[in-house]
Structures are given as structure tokens and as C-alpha cells.
């Protein structure tokens, strides 16, 4: 497979983010609907999960980068890598922006709807989850854009 070091790095970042996010949200989402919405215990648990998720992502990425550095020659990247990175960062910004707007929309919607799911997501703990989800989705979209641009040529 004709894959550059930078593209392999992107694959590692995307897979690590997806794996850790899956674990994180499987633990975090059930907490949203606990009785004590936005309660201290839920927020403490969320903080613990966040720290654990950050450590896991760092460890997975370091191990992944070491492995790809062993099997392929590491490089600094060139002008094409920088162009691809710039374009994928634009996608990241747009998706993250949409995520933040959706979160604000949920908070505002809670003033008009009585559904428990809307209220739960508008509580501090729900908002935190939505913001983290936006960040994760934006990062995965950016990685997918980068891989698509590498596969396409530029």
C-alpha cells in the first residue's frame, strides 16, 4: 500500500480517537440520565473519565507512532502535507462550530420543551457530553478529510 508516514499517523490518530471515544461515551452517557442531573458525583465521574480518556489517547498515539516509525521511515512532511493539514483543519473548525451551535440550540430548546431528553442534555452534565462529542466528531471528520485528500492525491 502506497501510504506516507503522515497518512499512517492520521490513521493512528483517528483509530485511537474513535476507540477511546467509544469507551468514554459508553461510560459517560448513562450518567446523563441519573437522578441528580448536573450533580457533583456525576461531574466528578465525568472528570475522572475525561482524565482517563486523555491518558488513553496519549498512550495509544505514542505506541502507534512508535510502531509506524519502525515499519516506515518518519518524515517531517512537505508543502502538500501542510496543504492537506490546512484543509482538514477547516473541516475541523466547521464541524466543531456546528457542534457548539447545536449545543446552544439544545440549551435554548429546553426552555420550550418538556421532554426529559431535552432537559437532560441542557443540564451541565449533558452539555459537557455534547461538547466533548462535538470535539470527537470534529476530530474524526478532520482525520477522514485528511485521509481522503491523501488517497485522492492532494
Amino acid at each position, binding site marked *: 500500500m*502506497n501510504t*506516507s508516514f503522515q497518512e499512517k499517523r492520521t490513521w493512528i490518530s483517528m483509530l485511537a480517537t474513535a476507540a477511546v471515544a467509544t469507551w468514554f461515551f459508553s461510560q459517560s452517557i448513562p450518567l446523563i440520565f441519573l437522578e441528580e442531573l448536573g450533580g457533583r458525583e456525576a461531574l466528578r465521574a465525568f472528570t475522572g473519565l475525561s482524565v482517563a480518556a486523555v491518558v488513553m489517547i496519549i498512550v495509544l498515539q505514542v505506541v502507534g507512532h512508535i510502531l509506524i516509525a519502525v515499519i516506515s521511515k518518519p*518524515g517531517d512532511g*512537505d*508543502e*502538500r*502535507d501542510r496543504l492537506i493539514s490546512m484543509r482538514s483543519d477547516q473541516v475541523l473548525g466547521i464541524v466543531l462550530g456546528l457542534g457548539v451551535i447545536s449545543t446552544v440550540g439544545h440549551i435554548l430548546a429546553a426552555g420550550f420543551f418538556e421532554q426529559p431528553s431535552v432537559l437532560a442534555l441542557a443540564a451541565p452534565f449533558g452539555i459537557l457530553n455534547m461538547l466533548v462529542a462535538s470535539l470527537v466528531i470534529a476530530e474524526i471528520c478532520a482525520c477522514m478529510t485528511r485521509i481522503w485528500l491523501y488517497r*485522492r*492525491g*492532494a
Partner: protein
Amino acid sequence: MAKASISNQIRRLRFEADEMTQADLAKRVGVTRQTVLAIEKGKYSPSLEVAFKIAAVFDVPLDAVFRYEPAENSKKN
């Protein structure tokens, strides 16, 4: 609106330069082999600096390596 394109003669020039490999050219120009491949296939248009470096490697003028083809010409071809 038809899109203009930039064609190149890198593959031929590499062949004439003692069958220089893409990796060799990439090393001399200071880019990755994947970038040389993308330029050669016409999928990526390099910066002026890289374009001049490629021409310098083959010791030919820039227009012997790259040719700008306006939309009408590309349509005919």
C-alpha cells in the same frame, strides 16, 4: 466552466535521466515520494519553488517540465 490543467513531463524526464526513481527525485527536491507521485499524475500542482527545483534537477527550463493548458485546450484533448 471547464477547469484549466497543468500537465507535466516528469515521468519522461526521469526516464531520460538514467531512469531516476521517484524517491531519488523526491529526495533531491525535498518533498516526499508521495508528493512526486501526485505531481506526476497531475493530481497536485506544486508551489513555484518546488516546480523550479524539479526543473533544476533535470537541468531544463520550467516550461520543459510543466505546461499550463487553458480550459479550451484541455477540452479538445
